[in-house]
């Protein structure tokens, strides 16, 4: 049986076991290694992808259930080949350290930026509870998000 997925606008087929987590199929079959399987429990957000526009941990989603949806990974979030506004703000704010949490952060914050243009500092902090960062202490990430909201 073959599975059919739409990832970053491309159609892909996969022969994976239907219960394989989406993150593993993305990484091992499509070499889309942006999504990181860090906790595999849905807690850290490093594997976050957009499923029909909604941030979703791809470690908890069996690949079979992802069929028929528009899947966007961090690799698909660039704008005209460049950084999107939140990526650009994160870069400008010198937010990145080891970087492992950022693909998931970028996915969540890209969503926040489009759905919640009035977000306050506290909204951002609340929105980030599903995305853990072990390195940065979050402050630069929050600053960058405020910057991206302000310059949007």
């Amino acid at each position, binding site marked *: 049986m073959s599975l059919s997925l739409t990832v970053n606008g491309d159609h892909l087929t996969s022969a994976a076991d239907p219960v394989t987590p989406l993150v593993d199929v993305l990484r091992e079959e499509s070499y889309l*290694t942006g999504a990181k399987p860090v906790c595999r429990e849905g807690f850290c957000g490093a594997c976050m992808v957009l499923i029909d526009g909604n941030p979703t941990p791809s470690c908890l989603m069996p690949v079979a259930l992802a069929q028929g949806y528009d899947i966007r990974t961090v690799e698909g979030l660039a704008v005209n080949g460049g950084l999107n506004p939140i990526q650009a703000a994160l*870069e400008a704010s010198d937010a990145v350290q080891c970087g492992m949490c950022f693909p998931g952060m970028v996915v969540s914050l890209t969503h926040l930026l489009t759905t919640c243009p009035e977000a306050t500092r506290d909204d951002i*902090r609340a929105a980030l509870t599903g995305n853990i960062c072990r390195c940065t202490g979050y402050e630069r990430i929050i600053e960058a998000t405020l910057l991206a909201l302000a310059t949007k």
Partner: protein
Amino acid sequence: MSDASATMNFGRRDAADKLRGRTRYTIDRYLPGMLHAAVLRADVPSGRIARLDIAKAARMPGVRAIVTAADAPGMVGIGIADHPLFARDVIRYDGEPIAAIAADTLIQARAALAAIDVEIEPLPVVLTMADALAPDAPLVHPDWRNYEVLLEGGARGGNVAWEATVVRGDVDTAFARPDVEIIESSFRVGRQNHVAFEPRAVIASYEDERFHIETSTQVPWSVRNATARLLAVPASQVRVTVPPVGGGFGLKFDIAIEPFAALLARASGRSVRLVNSREEEMLTCLFRENAEIRIRSAVTRDGEIAGREAVVLMDCGAYGGEQIFLTTMTAHTLGGNYSLGAVRLVSRAVYTNTAPNGAFRACNGVYNTFALERHTDEIAARIGMDPLAFRRRNVLGDGDLGATGQVFEGDVLGPMLDRMDTMRDAAAMPPERADGRLYGRATAVGTWFVFVGPSAATVNMNADGTATLVTSGVEIGSGSMMQALPQIVAGALGLSPNDVIVRAADTDAAGYDVGVGGGRTTVSLGAASLSAAQEVRTKLLKVASEMIEAAPEDLVMRSGRIEIAGAPGSGRLISEVAARAQGQIGPISGTGAFTGAGVPAMPGCVAGHFIDAIDIPVFAVHDCEVAVDTETGHVEVLSYRVVQDVGRALNPRAICGQIQGGVVQGLGYALHEEVTIGSNGRVCQNGFETYRVPLALDVVPVEINLYEGAPSIGPLGTKGAGEVPILNVAAAVACAIADATGKPIRELPLTPPRVLELLLDQRSTLSLPHIAEAWTDNLVRPHSAGGSN
């Protein structure tokens, strides 16, 4: 050179790809035809392997190779070689490796693990340091006497893997003085898990009779040497390269799973990928060690510390590892803050049947600083002195002696305390202060050091005007490799840091290096890189002087040009000079090397130390305000301020990012990160659900002041800045909570239930009966110096 040109807020060149998800960490590498490996781990804390039969597993589908203890004869360690790669006959901790399998898929490898026939007979278990130090305790290493000793001088015996002592002056006499109060405090802290986001991961290949190990490590040369030792092959047969590393914090400062993959690659003739599962990381992560501490001081009523003694027990788990080295640090973290009349300290690494512990950001320092600062507040309370005034009176200043008799240079901590006063006074009072919760505040001081040691660097000048820096340094996220080093090289050569290419670590290409950790990258690798760049500069100026017809000393390098000083726009592009040189005399390159000079301790004062005194002390002052909810025990941090001694800030923004991140990691340690070990010897927190690291909602922005100008032998006056930010956090938070609640705080983390128990006086007093009443009764080998016995 005008070294001001090295200071800037140069952004990270690796950021854009990390933000796009393009950066390929070790876990993201998939080689064609590679195999997947898994490790069989013991599920008992102590036992004897009665039978180990791999025949059935070897016939399982997809299996290409199985390796066991028979394939890895060597032993590794720091100070003593006590650690084999696989359990040999004896299991010493839950999770200890027994065998490793490589198969076509990970699922096949895991299935084959289950088919290994292993029978383990249980042996007696020691799970705590109290158990381990009990008379007649079973020995974790019954044949400890037979191990190869790699560094002479530490005392050992029974379950004491290593013991380091400091004795300076006559403590007994100080304690017998009629004019002193004697204050005693005991503390206990648990383990902390690094939770580096990238688990330890490796891909190994075996080609032309050499191993190639691509690994997520902070210490490529240590991995090279330790792998060779375990496999009993010459170190020259091992090449280690390091892709971008997804977080280290000290977790990756030791060999990990690399030798398994190397053995499997040799056995199978294929590349082998091995990645720890999150559960494996949680259970065997080389935690920050749990520790038990007793400190006793003799203090006069006007605040002079006449004498101090301390016993520090550090749980090393089943193997000595980093703890052996870290026993050294107690001398500096407990003895490097305050002026002490007489002092004696003993630091003991104790074997237990638990997963081995290792290095973690400001290792040994965070809990000793917590203990020392809580003890300091208790002293101030006893003698009726303001805690800040007591600190100011006693912090080490210019010419003062540290515990080991080291003479400290410069007044640093005193002016840093003044600066904190200014910051505090300027701050607005937090609005939450009057909402019925208990309010507390504290200021804590801390001393850390830069772990110097050998580093090498080569700078190759390219004909296009760029320079390539080749070192064994690793970018683990701090920015030292991506920001500080290119800035240093660029500053010396008048280039933009964008024109300095930083070569990823490769032990075949770059010289020896101790590794990235201990705040040493900017200092040791920076010094080696600076001297390599200066050699390039000298050679380029010589060639340029012929081209420009001016003496080399009249030339400057700036903005990509070599010009006559004072005549901007004169001279030639560096690329022209480099191209000319390449054609005339061959490509220009320079090499540099560095190691710490070593600072003497007072003769006869220390025993068993790897570092008797510290080359580059680093100081920090932290201040925080907390609100404690009396109904739930929840602690909210209202404000946090840091004054950090950075020597010279090459990239202030990068340093401030490190401080914010380090403080938050410290808040986790202080308030909720807790590792516990069950009666079965297994770590109870096996994932993110049970081990709670700080979330965005838990943290506050840290107000930061970088203190520059303290003496440093680092290049351009720098000191390491990434390690120190976590040092005082638990101390500051615990002291603030004690201030708020009026309760004695003896343990970390200060989780809501624990704080509630304190508030309700339900927390029983901490007793550590395995720390003997008389200091000297805590020694394997009585210390001869100091006249205190």
